[in-house]
């Protein structure tokens, strides 16, 4: 990190905006194809009814909701890294927060699709919004789904704002270096940023303010997503630890996604100088800590169900482990509970490709987690008569695949239009590190007084 030259930062980052390689076009084409498949599936489903998605009684919810939770979860880590680490002044976030925020935004945009295609009557989806109408009908404010609609909208708008505000200084840099349509675009977006001190001061305040707003918002958003399940009386949905569990799970899968994109960007755009092993190490440690919280809440849920001896809950738990959905549950435990322990080892954390594959495993685990939250409890509900096993059909799977295509497509386009690494913050970081390293050491020694105490007090 110490070797980065000031001039190189702009050059490297701006280079990532130009002339994509062939691989880029291929991946983009695949993504667009997936999206088109998804559109076709949705049109088919729209025409014939939701039955073609192969949900049934009692599986009134399935993959659409799982996917919704998965994507909304993924959106949390962008905020975490960016906002919380900004507030706690952890400067290692700087090279990676931009793409993490972009990831946040695009996964919200992906997540928002799912409740819509999940609805039986998509064409009336605006009915869940409170708007004045001549029937004087309000939506039902008691419904967690309504809370959801409100929370997601707020979160999406705030995330866009956060991403955009944080990007203004960089857009100005782009503007100064661009030609053609890009020039016009960046000129418009950079709102006349000149880099004056007053601008910087206003910018800092705004940015911190949005961050302060976003942290509780992010927590509340996923708590509300959790309440879709927890507020019901379904066994194994009605779990008091679901709000923190969902938040932890969201951060977890989001961190894993950050690691994936971290390695990919580092490789594709040759950002080795910015996305260093040290940052990966920190990210991995953070992921590990979150994984442990998630593990604790997950195991705590199992244990407390068992502890309670509650008939309904226990039945679901038993069915989860030995029933037809057992492969999913065990797969989740293996991928999301056991696998993260690899990150306890420094050697592993420092191996980019190992981390890359691990992050994919973790995401798979978290995807399975969402599936096993939704499906098995529905399968073994209060009424044994209706117990049934349903695996998602082609339409649902197609739309799931399309959601990945959609997300990747948006992300790829973003990377080519906007700088995926924050230039100004990396410069700040380089500056601080260069100037602060010697001073830090002095401070450290200044604070260490135990030794003095030890010598004086004779602690043995």
């Amino acid at each position, binding site marked *: 990190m110490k070797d980065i030259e000031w001039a190189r930062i702009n050059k490297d980052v701006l280079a990532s905006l130009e002339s994509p390689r062939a691989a880029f076009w291929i991946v983009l084409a695949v993504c667009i194809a997936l999206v088109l498949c998804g559109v076709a599936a949705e049109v088919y489903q729209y025409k014939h009814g939701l039955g073609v998605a192969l949900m049934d009684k009692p599986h009134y919810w399935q993959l659409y909701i799982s996917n919704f939770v998965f994507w909304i979860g993924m959106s949390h880590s962008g905020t975490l890294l960016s906002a919380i680490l900004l507030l706690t002044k952890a400067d290692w976030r700087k090279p990676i927060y931009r793409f993490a925020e972009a990831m946040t935004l695009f996964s919200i945009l992906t997540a928002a699709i799912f409740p819509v295609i999940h609805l039986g009557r998509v064409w009336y989806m605006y009915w869940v919004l409170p708007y004045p109408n001549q029937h004087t009908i309000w939506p039902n404010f008691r419904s967690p789904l309504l809370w959801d609609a409100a929370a997601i909208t707020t979160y999406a708008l705030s995330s866009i704002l956060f991403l955009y505000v944080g990007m203004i200084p960089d857009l100005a840099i782009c503007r100064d270096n661009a030609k053609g349509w890009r020039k016009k675009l960046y000129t418009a977006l950079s709102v006349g940023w000149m880099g004056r001190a007053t601008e910087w001061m206003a910018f800092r305040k705004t940015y911190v303010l949005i961050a302060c707003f976003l942290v509780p918002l992010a*927590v509340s958003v996923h*708590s509300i997503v959790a*309440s879709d399940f*927890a*507020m*019901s*009386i379904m066994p194994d949905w*009605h*779990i*008091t*630890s*679901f*709000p*923190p*569990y969902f938040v932890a799970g969201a951060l977890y899968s989001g961190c894993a996604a950050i690691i994936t994109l971290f390695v990919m960007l580092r490789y594709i755009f040759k950002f080795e100088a910015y996305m260093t092993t040290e940052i990966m190490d920190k990210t991995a440690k953070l992921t590990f800590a979150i994984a*442990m919280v998630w593990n*604790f*809440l997950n195991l*705590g*849920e199992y*244990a*407390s*169900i*068992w*502890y*309670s*001896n*509650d008939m309904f809950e226990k039945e679901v738990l038993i069915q989860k482990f030995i029933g037809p959905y057992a492969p999913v549950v065990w797969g989740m435990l293996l991928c999301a509970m056991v696998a993260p322990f690899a990150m306890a080892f420094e050697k592993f954390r420092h191996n980019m490709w190992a981390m890359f594959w691990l992050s994919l495993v973790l995401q798979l685990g978290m995807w399975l987690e969402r599936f096993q939250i939704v499906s098995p409890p529905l399968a073994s509900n209060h009424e044994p008569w209706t117990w049934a096993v349903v695996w998602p059909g082609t339409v649902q799977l197609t739309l799931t695949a399309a959601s990945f295509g959609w997300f990747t497509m948006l992300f790829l386009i973003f990377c080519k239009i906007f700088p995926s690494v924050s230039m100004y913050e990396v410069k700040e970081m380089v500056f601080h590190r260069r100037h602060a390293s010697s001073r830090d050491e002095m*401070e*450290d*020694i200044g*604070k*260490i*007084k*135990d*030794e*003095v*105490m*030890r010598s*004086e*007090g*004779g*602690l*043995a």
Partner: protein
Amino acid sequence: MNSYANWAILMDNFLFALYMPLAAIFWCAVLHLVNGKWRYEVRFLMSSATALFPLGFVLLLIILASGAKSFPWMGGDTFGEPLNGWHNIIFFDLRQIGLFLAVWAFCSYFVKLQKQEYPTADPVARRKFRNVALLVPFIYCIYGTIMSWDFEMTQIPRWWSPIYGPYHFESMMRVFLAFFIIALFFLRKRNLLKRPTHDYVFNYCAQIMLALTIIWTYAFFMQYLIMWYGDLPFEIERFHKMMDGPNWFLFWAFFLMNSFIPFLMLIFSAIRHSPALMLFPAFSILMGTFLERYMWIISPHADDIDHTPFFSSWEDIAITAGVFLVGCFLWNRRMKKDGLYGTDEEVMERRHAEA
């Protein structure tokens, strides 16, 4: 000592006697792991709280010996439902005693290693300490969860809430900090300490307490909201008993003392930076948490008994005062032994200088 309520006060005191050392070790370990520089000022003060373990152990034995007086389910009152294997008196006693001793031993070991750890110490020792410190959060969370379930959640055996464990031990983490800064304030006031601590320690503790206050409120509210919304009688009844029972004001008192009052004070940096003003939120949290534990322990019987701790029984005052005094005595003795107090001359000298 006939009333269940008296035993509840005893259990309440036990949990505090247990968590003071336990949470102290937790904070020592966490501050070490996140590399908080100010830990050097407080870590020995905190860890000297392990002196309370013997007190906790004696209280535990008394409580276990009291059997069904402390744990209604032991009296065969299983609320009409079969209980699972955890609700087994022998197993219960064994795991309580065994776990307590194991945790006690571990904490003593931690304290021992901590004394050998300093920036210029042998890297091997430092690494060893770090590894042990890494274990502490795990042990704290798991043991805390078990304690919360055994002593509070399953006072109604089939009442369950997976968030209860985190809610409980998170609350106890915070009350330790509250207690610690109160103690620190008075120690500083009397100039007893060998090396004075800085004011920023109060600010740091306050910041953590603020975060924990928000988390406490979140956990409490979410637990309540989910149960209220689901409205399954067996769950929400417990809350109703607390909220509408004879001691309803204690419920609202602990709720306010744990959430609004500390939150509204701790958000102001002026308060956070003032050791004297910090006494208010700290007392609020201390009292609030004490009542919180009491209300949860007593909740299954809330409509059977009309007992308000300290108001309706001198035994409560006696027990609490006794535990407090013994605790102070033990802690004081440990600090002396660890050389945390200045010599008499030093203290006198400093007092003199101040005067």
